[in-house]
């Protein structure tokens, strides 16, 4: 198992590349989810405002 992670001596480079890709592919959806929640919150606030008027 250990030599698998060694990647024939290129561990830093292979895992560095895959890690950055993984990082971006996780962070982007999370940011999108947060952006959607913010949009929904704003819409609900508008709805509440319109009810009061």
């Amino acid at each position: 198992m250990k030599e698998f992670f060694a990647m024939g001596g290129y561990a830093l480079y292979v895992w560095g590349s895959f890690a950055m890709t993984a990082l971006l592919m996780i962070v982007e959806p999370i940011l999108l989810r947060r952006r959607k929640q913010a949009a929904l919150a704003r819409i609900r606030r508008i709805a509440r405002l319109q009810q009061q008027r």
Partner: protein
Amino acid sequence: MSSRLVNWFKFSSPSTFYPLAGKIGFWSMVVTVVLLAVGLYMSFFVAPTDYKQGEGYRIIYVHVPAAWMSMFLYVLMAGWAALGLVFNTRLSAMMASALAPTGASMAFIALWTGAFWGKPMWGAWWVWDARLTSELILLFLYLGFIALQSAIDDPRRADRACAVLAIVGVVNVPIIYYSVIWWNTLHQGATIQIRGESSMDPLMLTTLLIMTLAFWAYCIAVAMARVRSIILERERETTWVGEMVKEGRA
């Protein structure tokens, strides 16, 4: 672009497209997860070791798909932008601005993995190789698009201004690419061949294709999610959005 598709998008309004984007987004995310799992497994366990570059070559399974996607997304973005400009449809313009950040992240991944690949192979983190340099310039074009998009407050003007920029950009991409290659061959003699795709082992090639399809599905999923957020932001005052949120269908 078959005329049916063009008409379809021309007439479909954000409200009819919103739920559809949700479905496409969901299923493409499922496809992404499946393909990524298979692709990663193949990248590490199935694809043979490269006789010259040893295990280090496996970086291509992320580098090449990201580079292809960054180029493809830019052309797609310019296509949507042109469509939005010609037909004056808001939805196409929203699609264009939904693709930009993902394209930029793909370009960044391509550059990052390119650098991580260059270090062991050529001994330097950054090599002025023609392809990497063009990728860097493509990232600049993406950043220019995003900067212009955020600099203009009025959404309509932002969409149409960015459309012009994207079209001018896509006309320039091939010119930039070939001028960089000309510049590169002039100063360095023959460029160092990163890899010859065609002469690759069929197993490597299939792994690469699976990873590319996984990246492709990922980009669709993310783009759909972002276009839904953009629709929510742009149409927040409309009645259909209000009802949808009230009924929890958003």
